[in-house]
């Protein structure tokens, strides 16, 4: 049956999907929010066709718009899709993070209302967790939702929100009881991104591009059914979502055509006549070995998942390994290109430059390397938690971010 499914996926993709593009385009699109925005309508059109053909929400229950199939079919589809560049970037976050969280923690009405449209690309979702004062320590967030009758009023600022500029809904974490310890006074809500009081501002990063946003909530009124899960239990839902995020980032197949991938740097080395240097050859071989291993570890985790062994914190391993691979690739690129790294006189070199400047972001976004190492140490190896963490102090007595105390700053 999986074979039939795979065959069907293969022919549909061949007939409908574009193949992977060249490396220069990748580097541009990696940084540019503009490009993504202009393509939203086309992406929605493609997503609807992909959905109608039966290749979205493959493992999700039928009653919420899914296909009700197994991991085997999902893996078969992913394997077939690897050679294609599906124009579905706008939906990756919704289906990868808020979606599964609503599936696991939402109520019946929410699942019926939101999930089918999310899958078909009719409504686009984003995720609103990080704040200027709450990065690695997400649970120290200060955005607040104050109950008013059967609704809530949302205030605060979020950062690093991908896709906020074109999203219809967001899954937002806000503090609903500041007198509780920090993990215990948080709730998760669905927020209508078109509601009055929501302001989205592009956030420019080191590369000069603005792939993320800042989002400001100014007395935004939430709907009566906006609460996902129980009030003040939003941290549980957040943990589910953060785990899904790490696995999504970690097992995302790095396109072969990335400017810092072995294939690209090898081609550059050949073109620039640098492959004659024994050190460069060894570095390229080492890059190949590391890249292969990250790729193989992703495969192993997927196979384990199919065999019923849940990846759990191994998402952190592959996220960390991917970030370190990027850092190593930076070193190889500098040795391959030499002085050209300082100032490119060709497009392929320029693409490498932009990618090098983007690399440090990969070790932060989706959880810093340090947070991943904590997760690996504590949840895989069973080591003790960091000493002196502030799990039991009421939030309004804690210092947060760069402010002297949460109280003073609110």
């Amino acid at each position, binding site marked *: 049956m999986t074979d039939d499914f795979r065959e069907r996926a293969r022919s549909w993709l061949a007939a409908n999907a574009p193949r992977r593009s060249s490396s220069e385009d990748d580097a541009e699109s990696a940084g540019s929010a503009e490009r993504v925005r202009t393509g939203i309508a086309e992406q929605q059109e493609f997503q609807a066709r992909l959905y109608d053909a039966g290749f979205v929400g493959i493992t999700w229950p039928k009653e919420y718009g899914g296909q009700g199939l197994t991991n085997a079919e999902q893996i078969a589809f992913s394997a077939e899709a690897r050679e294609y560049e599906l124009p579905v970037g706008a939906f990756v976050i919704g289906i990868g993070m808020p979606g599964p969280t609503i599936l696991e923690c939402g109520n019946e009405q929410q699942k019926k209302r939101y999930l089918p449209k999310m899958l078909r690309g009719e409504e686009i979702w984003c995720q609103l967790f990080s704040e200027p004062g709450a990065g690695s320590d997400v649970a120290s967030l200060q955005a607040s939702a104050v109950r008013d009758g059967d609704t809530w009023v949302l205030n605060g600022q979020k950062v690093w929100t991908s896709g906020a500029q074109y999203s219809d809904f967001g899954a937002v974490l806000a503090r609903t009881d500041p007198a509780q310890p920090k993990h215990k006074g948080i709730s998760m809500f669905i927020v209508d991104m078109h509601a009055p009081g929501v302001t989205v501002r592009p956030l420019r990063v080191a590369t000069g591009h603005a792939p993320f946003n800042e989002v400001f909530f100014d007395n935004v009124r939430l709907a009566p059914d906006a609460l996902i899960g129980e009030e003040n239990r939003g941290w549980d839902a957040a943990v589910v979502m953060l785990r899904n995020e790490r696995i999504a980032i970690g097992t995302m197949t790095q396109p072969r055509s990335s400017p810092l991938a072995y294939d690209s740097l090898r081609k550059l080395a050949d073109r620039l006549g640098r492959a004659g240097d024994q050190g460069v050859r060894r570095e390229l*071989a080492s890059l190949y070995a590391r890249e292969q*291993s990250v790729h193989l570890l992703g495969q192993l985790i997927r196979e384990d998942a199919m065999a019923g062994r849940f990846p759990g914190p191994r998402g952190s391993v592959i996220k960390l390994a991917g970030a370190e691979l990027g850092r190593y690739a930076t070193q190889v690129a500098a040795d391959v290109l030499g002085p050209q790294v300082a100032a490119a006189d060709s497009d392929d070199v320029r693409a490498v430059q932009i990618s090098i400047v983007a690399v440090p972001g990969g070790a932060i976004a989706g959880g810093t390397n340090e947070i991943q190492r904590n997760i690996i140490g504590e949840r895989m190896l069973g080591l003790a938690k960091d000493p002196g963490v502030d799990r039991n102090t009421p939030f309004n007595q804690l210092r947060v971010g760069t402010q002297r105390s949460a109280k003073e700053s609110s």
Partner: protein
Amino acid sequence: MTLILTQDEESLRDSVRRFVADRSPLTKLRDLIGSGQPYDADVWKQLSAQLGLAGLIVDEEHGGAAAGLSALSVALYELGAGLVASPLLASTLAAAALGSLGDQAASGALLPGLASGELIGTVAWQPAVTVAATASTAAGGCTLAGQLSPVLNGAQAHFLLVPANGPDGLGLYQVAGDAHGLTSEPLTAVDHARSLATVRLDGTPAVRLTGDAAAALAHVADVANLALAAEQCGAMAACIAMTSEYAKIRVAFGQPIGAFQAVKHKLADMQTGWELAYAALRAAARSGDETPGQFSAAASVARVMVSEPYFEAAADTIQLHGGIGFTWEHDAHLYYKNALSGKVLFGGPQDQLDRLAATLGM
């Protein structure tokens, strides 16, 4: 190509693991150090005959299990984790060479003995070192001359396969361990679990084996990479387990030391290195059985991904244990020495990268 273990492989893993725990715990290695013996003869008998590990990659026609390279890697992983001293690697490489050559007479004469463990064989060669023996043909037949070092189990092998340059170019020659003019001198190996010797040949009678010697040596290098990667991956896991356990029970500054990020994060890095190495190992093991054309690159990748990280992990195992980890009584130094030795045998990290680069067409 499926990377996870088959049920057969899981059973093999479990039985070797039990064997190591029951019959060859680390105290065995300390007994060996005291006795000056290269390995425990009883353990070897049980490993080879009872568990059948010596015949894993020997075909059934010659008394082996023909279980393949993946099964071999599963067994070696467990033996590596327990630092079990044995001539298994040496004999396995000899079997790999014979299997690749396809010399009917030699295979018939030697493989059954290798498979049962009654014969110990070795390939007297290190890939990164120039072939150091020469062959000449005289009245009575062929003789070899030269010095080979270090040779795995060179002082115990019943026969040695020696690459030598002769009138017809490179050949692989079979030499008896007790042949005339052969002297072997055991070396002070840094790894107590690895017996090495210098072998000197002087007018030593030898038989040139038929088949492609260069291809056989290349195969030996690939199998050595897979085998060492498997042992090292197991040993690295043992270091991580040992250090994690200690980090839970040792208290400093009022906390289990695992609560300190200096300890926690180093262990997380060790674990991450192991996960990558293990994935690469599984791919190399499967490739050896299923996609021989890609085996060489895959085996180099596995070796590169584990040799250096295991050595670093073994050093960090000492470091994270603090002073106690540097004492003779603690097991950490046994792994450190094993990692140092395994890092350089059959081509160190730089050699592997050269080999991989060549395979990738650079």
